[in-house]
């Protein structure tokens, strides 16, 4: 049975699109047929981060409005046969997201895909609400920083009360915390909230901690989801997070000081 996962945060700029891309690629690498959909109508970024911006013909809004069918809009990733991207419109805005249209599209996608990832826009308005409405699972992307934590708390509250599952009194959306841009040095210096601080405030299970890494910017700029970069600590952390999501046990890396090898010390942090 296909599972719809929303990647949301409330706060903007914390790593939703990076996470959506990495998670989708991670699931595809594990053999699951996965599609990642951009819900940020008018401010689309997913196509850039996935490296398919030059192949966009039809988009999510076209399909919702019946101007094109799913096959014309879905873009197959060149690196992995299991991975598909569903870009959105850049010229329209979030009013174009009609809930019944979105439902129809998701129902059709569920016939062929194992996982459907919804990359939510920031905020708590129509775009974000539509992205989370049909979710079975949610990944709350949070930076270890007070405003991000406050906004994540808000979006968790909204997920608990305004998702379709909540409205229909069905089993609740399965909510997970993903802490991103974690900088262990700053946490040790007391400049940044720790994992435990955030866990205490948000009270949701921790899916993973993604360390701050320069490789993420490189990944966006080259249109390569960070999990495809073997040298990236963030990429490795995403792979761990995907494994945990699939039910495996993985120790949380990047939250304790690692023993540094001689060459690491010589050349500085990766």
């Amino acid at each position, binding site marked *: 049975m296909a599972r719809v996962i929303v990647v949301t945060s409330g706060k903007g700029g914390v790593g939703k699109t990076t996470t959506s891309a990495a998670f989708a690629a991670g699931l595809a690498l594990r053999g699951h047929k996965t599609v990642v959909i951009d819900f940020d109508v008018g401010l689309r970024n997913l196509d850039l981060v996935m490296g398919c911006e030059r192949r966009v013909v039809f988009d999510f809004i076209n399909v919702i409005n019946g101007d094109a069918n799913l096959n014309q809009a879905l873009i197959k990733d060149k690196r992995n046969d299991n991975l598909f991207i569903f870009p959105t419109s850049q010229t329209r805005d979030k009013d174009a997201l009609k809930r019944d249209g979105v439902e129809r599209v998701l129902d059709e996608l569920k016939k062929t895909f194992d996982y459907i990832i919804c990359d939510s826009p920031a905020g708590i308005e129509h775009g974000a609400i539509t992205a989370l409405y049909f979710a079975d699972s949610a990944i709350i992307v949070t930076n270890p920083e007070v405003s991000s934590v*406050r906004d994540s*708390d*808000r979006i*968790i*509250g*909204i997920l*608990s*009360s305004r998702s379709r599952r909540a409205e229909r009194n069905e089993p609740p959306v399965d909510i997970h915390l993903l802490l991103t841009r974690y900088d262990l040095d700053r946490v040790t210096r007391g400049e940044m909230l720790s994992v435990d601080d955030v866990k205490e*405030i948000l*009270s949701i299970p921790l899916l993973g901690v993604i360390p701050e890494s320069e490789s993420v910017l490189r990944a966006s700029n080259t249109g390569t989801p960070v999990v495809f970069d073997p040298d990236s600590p963030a990429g490795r952390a995403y792979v761990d997070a995907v494994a945990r999501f699939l039910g495996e046990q993985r120790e949380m890396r990047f939250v304790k000081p690692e023993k540094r090898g001689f060459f690491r010390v010589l050349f500085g942090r990766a």
Partner: protein
Amino acid sequence: MAINLVQGALFTVMVVRASMLRDPSFEHELARQIDRSPRFFRNAPVVLDVRGVGGFETADEFARARDILRHYTLVLVGVQNAAPAQVEAAAAVGLASFAPTAAQPARAPAETAEPPPPAARSRLVTAPVRSGTQVYARGTDLVVTAAVSPGAELVADGNIHVYGALRGRALAGANGDTGARIFCSRLDAELVSIAGQYLVSDQLPSEHRGHSVEIALVDDRLTLTRI
């Protein structure tokens, strides 16, 4: 699509005890209180609490009370703790009937065909109260057994108990019950209020921050006690 034309809303309304109205020094004291903050009291809605007071059985008496209060710029909008006959008399001059206060005195009704309705059970919330969420326990106490996030709001006509960290707002005695109290395991509140008297985070004594505290209204002032 059905629309509710009359929606629920929450207001803080002041209460004047009818017994005080009978006191000869009442008007003088009232004038002094209003004088301290005239803008706050101008056109402020007021409810007359007729508990434990004889009389107030005719529309005229309510009209007179209303006129006295109006003289001091207050607007009498309703009565509280009124017996059925008093409610009728008050209604005759356009006054509403407000929910009774939690602690009901032994005002034995002359004869009642049916037993009084059972006291409403406390409202229990066991999941974390997230930022942006408002919970209102109408006519009863509110018990929360999880954390209350900053930006969340708890309102109760009765007491509020938080067996967890209280980081948001807590407003007890929302219908004017000055005997309501707030209890929490960990005080980190943005604002606490009992019957409209409030303190913001900055005003909370720092020695109680982060601790188990009981907050009550004593002599019209919010007092905190470690529990």
